[in-house]
């Protein structure tokens, strides 16, 4: 960089940022250590669990989940593609990545949803949060590795940290959007019957915003997976690390197989979380069928249903209520 021919003085923004990071590192060591311990424990426990269970059993479990929330087609696709992962010798690394993504998603949601709720209820919070989210989303993902490595060194924890920061924004945005999008008359109904803000949030806003919030969760998961390679650079075990290694050793096949495994997991998680958000769209999912069977079972509700049918035929809307009330 030339320093002599410019009239604009050099402003050491980078140095300031770096010393800010150092300052945080020095003064909040206890907090960072605590976070590192917890995150490390969560990921390694989950990874151990996923790796310990025989791979074929897990494939069946994943397929069943697909069947329950969506369709038998997803279940079949899951079996085929996950067997491919095993066949490509990427099962253990795939489970490591899955564990990292799940934990990162969990943390991101725990942070994003409350912020989204606050932003939806308070204009000022919303006004502050929005540019911060814009900043987070436009910053190249690689840059998050700097604080991650400064705070946590090398390993899985900085991988999670960078992933969470990168994946957070859609979670916040869609939570805010979902809550703001709840029909205002329905919220008014809650108020008109004397519900407290907490009762309205729990009983009306969150349930009605669930499809949108789940769309946010879906986005968070997808972004987390897209960070897999970058997490690999930070030293987190998994498919990302395989890709990074394949680049440095010019091992094409290894990189292709790891990359393909990321895609397979991404598609699976996307289909499952999308279906979780709008269960009504999947009438042939296992859960929908179970629910219907339960509704159709039980003698009492059966009788009610019969009576209901009868009423419709008798024209419940044509004044039957009146006849009863008029007595």
């Amino acid at each position, binding site marked *: 960089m030339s320093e002599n021919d410019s009239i604009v003085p050099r402003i050491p923004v980078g140095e300031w940022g770096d010393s800010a990071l150092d300052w945080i590192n020095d003064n909040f060591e206890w907090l960072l250590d605590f976070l590192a311990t917890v995150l490390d424990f969560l990921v390694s426990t989950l990874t151990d669990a996923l790796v310990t269970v025989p791979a074929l059993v897990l494939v069946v479990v994943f397929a069943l989940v697909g069947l329950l929330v969506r369709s038998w087609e997803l279940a079949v696709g899951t079996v085929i593609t996950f067997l491919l992962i095993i066949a490509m010798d990427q099962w253990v690394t795939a489970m490591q990545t899955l564990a990292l993504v799940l934990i990162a998603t969990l943390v991101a949601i725990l942070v994003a949803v409350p912020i989204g709720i606050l932003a939806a209820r308070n204009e000022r919070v919303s006004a502050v949060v929005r540019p911060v989210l814009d900043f987070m989303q436009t910053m190249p993902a690689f840059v998050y590795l700097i604080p991650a490595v400064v705070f946590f060194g090398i390993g899985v924890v900085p991988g999670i940290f960078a992933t969470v920061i990168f994946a957070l924004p859609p979670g916040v945005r869609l939570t805010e959007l979902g809550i703001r999008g709840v*029909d205002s*008359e*329905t919220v*008014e*109904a*809650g*108020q*008109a*019957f*004397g*519900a*407290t803000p907490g*009762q309205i949030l729990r*009983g*009306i806003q969150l*349930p*009605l915003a669930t499809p949108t919030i789940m769309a946010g969760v879906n986005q968070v998961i997808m972004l987390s997976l897209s960070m897999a390679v970058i997490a690999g650079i930070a030293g987190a075990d998994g498919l990302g690390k395989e890709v990074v290694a394949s680049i440095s050793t010019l091992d094409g096949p290894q990189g292709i197989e790891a990359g393909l495994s990321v895609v397979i997991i991404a598609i699976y998680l996307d289909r499952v979380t999308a279906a979780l958000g709008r269960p009504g769209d999947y009438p042939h999912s296992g859960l929908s069928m179970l629910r219907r069977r339960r509704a159709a079972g039980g003698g009492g*509700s059966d009788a*009610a*249903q019969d*009576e*209901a049918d009868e*009423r419709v035929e008798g024209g*419940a*809307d*044509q*004044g*039957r*209520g*009146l006849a*009863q*009330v*008029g007595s």
Partner: protein
Amino acid sequence: MASISAEKLYKVFGRRPQRGVDALESGATRADLRKQGLTPAVIDASFDVKDGEIFVVMGLSGSGKSTLIRMVNGLLEPTSGTVSIDGDDVTRLTGEKLRRVRREKVSMVFQHFALLPHRTVGENAAYALEISGTNRAEREKRADRALEMVGLGGWGGSLPGELSGGMRQRVGLARALASGTDIMLMDEAFSALDPLIRRDMQDQLIELQHELGKTILFITHDLNEAMRLGDRIAMMRDGRIEQVGSAEEILNNPVNNYVAEFVQDVDRTRVLTAANVMEPPVAVLGTEQGPQTAHKLMREHQTTVLPVVRRDRTLAGLVHERDVATAVRDGGEMRVVPAEQVGVVRTGDHLVDLFGHATEHSLLVVLDEQDKVAGVIPRVTLLAALRSDPTSTSDTDQPTTTDAQLQPAGGAA
């Protein structure tokens, strides 16, 4: 005692709305305020809703009805003025105090039902009770009873999405009924329903109100609905209440051209009752009086029929001019048409129900609740009452007593 009482209510939307109120009070118009970026939604509204009545606020879209009703239960805070419920000023209540009023005194029914789609019909009906912390058994019992009342017994386990629009609004109604409040606010509650179902719901609301004695503040943009439901009606335009009165008062005595034009297309036969159009029974014959008296009365009052009444003013029958003339000429008994063959109607009958009788009888006799003769309606009078332009009737060539009665203010406009 008034259940709801609103005094000089103003609601102005925009920044620093109080200046809008000040400007309005010193004579500024809505347009003046708009230039300053203010929207005056409700302007100087005062009204009382009495215990146990259906009070309808009627106005076109954008006239401020929703804003007005939302100030009654504090969903909106007035810019100026007060609302009191059972004598307590609720205007500036906040937090728990306001919520208590909403739980215990005022419930609401919404235009688009505002049901919770993820809860069953029964849980929706019990919502208010759940909010107020009523235990499960009690609230299920009361929700079931409310559903029964609106004709949805047995539907408690269904989801709102499985119901038709009319049924969903019945759930909305049941939710308000189950809450047990004496006052119900209904903002365009039937406006989203098909006409047939709507009529049905109107009938049902009237029945419920008679049975339970609820005080109902009902908002609508449909004049026929207003006339059908309202014990009294407030006509609202551009944020102001132009007139408050019964359907008959508004039809027959509109305070200004706006209201007059508004009501001119109303089907008057379904609004006006026999009591509104009948003439006082000045010319009646006592049972003990003879043909000479009858003859004299008929000449004096220029009529061809006379009701015959007993001492207790119950109806004994009717005499016709030709029979009177015959009796006077021949000196024999005067033929009296027995009461059973007279065209008899009740004070509360709507005009639409009188036409059948009027085709057979030239004079209808109106009886009150105690079966006493309250008035008479000559066929001509019935037809005259249908004229939709009351302001011009006084200029017509045949002013009748009926016309005078219909417009005590002499067709003021």
